[in-house]
């Protein structure tokens, strides 16, 4: 039996997608010889692999991911960080300071305190332990200015686009620095507040219409229109 749907059709959990010689990709699972969808999303068949691009998900950490998080607690040996995930992340002192930590003298909240937003990378995570973060890398660390938008983590690939086409266009058209956290938080900064506002509107539009086609053009048009209104 062949593939039962057309590409980019909406499927619901439990829908039988294909039977026989196929591979179960994202958001699908295999039961006997059959492949079913496990999430609400759009089906995509690439070669022998069937994926469902989910319409709504939550963030599950993965090693190497760039994330944006908020410090929620300062502990003895590091910081607890909310990374918009079911699992709270931890930033240990050696991953944040560039010198040995002296528990007697150092006050951790002087480096990062509750409420601070950070750009970080996930360095470890498995199903038995909570994720650990690092800010020991170029451009990582505390976020001091700009704005942060929250979107569904399912829409992150769409904001980036194929080979970064969408994000490239966004950066160029809005003249903003945009950093996309894999956990659904997007950092936008520019010297011009109006540019930031337009970039945020564009990101919200992408989130809303992520499952439609011809989106890049529509977003470019929208930015152009917004621009026109601003300069008038």
């Amino acid at each position, binding site marked *: 039996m062949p593939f039962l749907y057309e590409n980019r059709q*909406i499927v*619901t959990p439990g829908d039988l997608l294909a039977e026989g010689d196929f591979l179960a990709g994202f958001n699908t699972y295999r*039961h006997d010889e059959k492949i079913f969808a*496990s*999430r*609400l999303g759009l089906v995509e068949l690439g070669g022998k692999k069937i994926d469902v691009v989910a319409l709504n998900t939550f963030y599950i950490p993965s090693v190497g991911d760039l994330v944006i998080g908020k410090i929620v607690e300062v502990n003895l040996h590091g910081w607890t960080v909310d990374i918009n995930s079911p699992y709270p992340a931890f930033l240990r002192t050696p991953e944040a300071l560039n010198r040995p930590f002296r528990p007697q003298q150092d006050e951790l909240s002087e480096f990062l305190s509750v409420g601070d937003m950070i750009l970080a990378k996930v360095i470890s995570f498995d199903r038995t332990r909570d994720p650990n973060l690092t800010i020991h890398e170029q451009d990582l660390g505390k976020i001091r200015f700009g704005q942060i938008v929250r979107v569904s983590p399912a829409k992150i690939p769409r904001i980036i686009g194929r080979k970064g086409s969408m994000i490239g266009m966004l950066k160029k058209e809005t003249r903003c620095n945009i950093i996309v956290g894999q956990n659904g938080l997007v950092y936008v900064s520019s010297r011009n507040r109006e540019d930031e506002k337009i970039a945020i509107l564009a990101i919200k539009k992408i989130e809303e*219409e992520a499952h*439609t086609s011809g989106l890049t053009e*529509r977003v470019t048009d929208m930015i152009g229109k917004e621009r026109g209104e601003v300069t008038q």
Partner: protein
Amino acid sequence: MTNKIVLVNEEGIRTDGRKITDLRPIKLEVGILGNADGSAYIEQGKNKILAAVYGPREAHPRHLALPDKALLRCRYHMAPFSVEERKSPAPSRREIELSKVIRESLEPAIFLEKFPRTSIDIFIEVLQADGGTRCAGITVASLALADAGIPMRDLIVACAAGKVGDQIVVDLNDVEDKEGEADVPVAYMPSFDAISLLQMDGQLTTEEFQQAVTLALDGCKKIHALQKEALKAKYQSIKEAAEVSEEE
């Protein structure tokens, strides 16, 4: 019983004008609450039920978290104004039992083992009750779970059948539930043809029971089609609107 109400007349018409194999009119909506991770609403006859799902999220209190899978919690609750006589808002014996029964009927559909140490919380709020609320509650909770993006093996759909006025009928309403002879709620996973909840209240012969289960499963299949439609509708409308603006 001297002056018993006629629940099914000679033409096979029930108190609300339905035939014995007719479901009540159903309206389903997905994603109607802004603060929950997933939500859904059902109107089935006079039933009005809201479901909200949170999670997976950190399990609190911590000691309840399971090391190998997510903790599934479910609260079925009837609003004080959901029935004719004011119901105390405190969870009754019946509501606690239904919470457990609903949780256990949804459990096999969810990939709980994918999210160890977290919890998934389901809240089912009955705003107006008219019989068959556990079934409608399961149907709507499964939609809210799918809306929250929680991976599931299948949607769960539930429907009841029972014996009313010596006839086996589907989707009992409040009067039929209270005055009828028996009630058989069934929860069902359509893609696997598997039953995840089967209860019976009252007395039926083996044949009648089998007939009731068959009728309930037919009802489930009809509701399942509506469920899928409701899930797709949320995104289909945006898609169409975007494509229309494209053509302009």
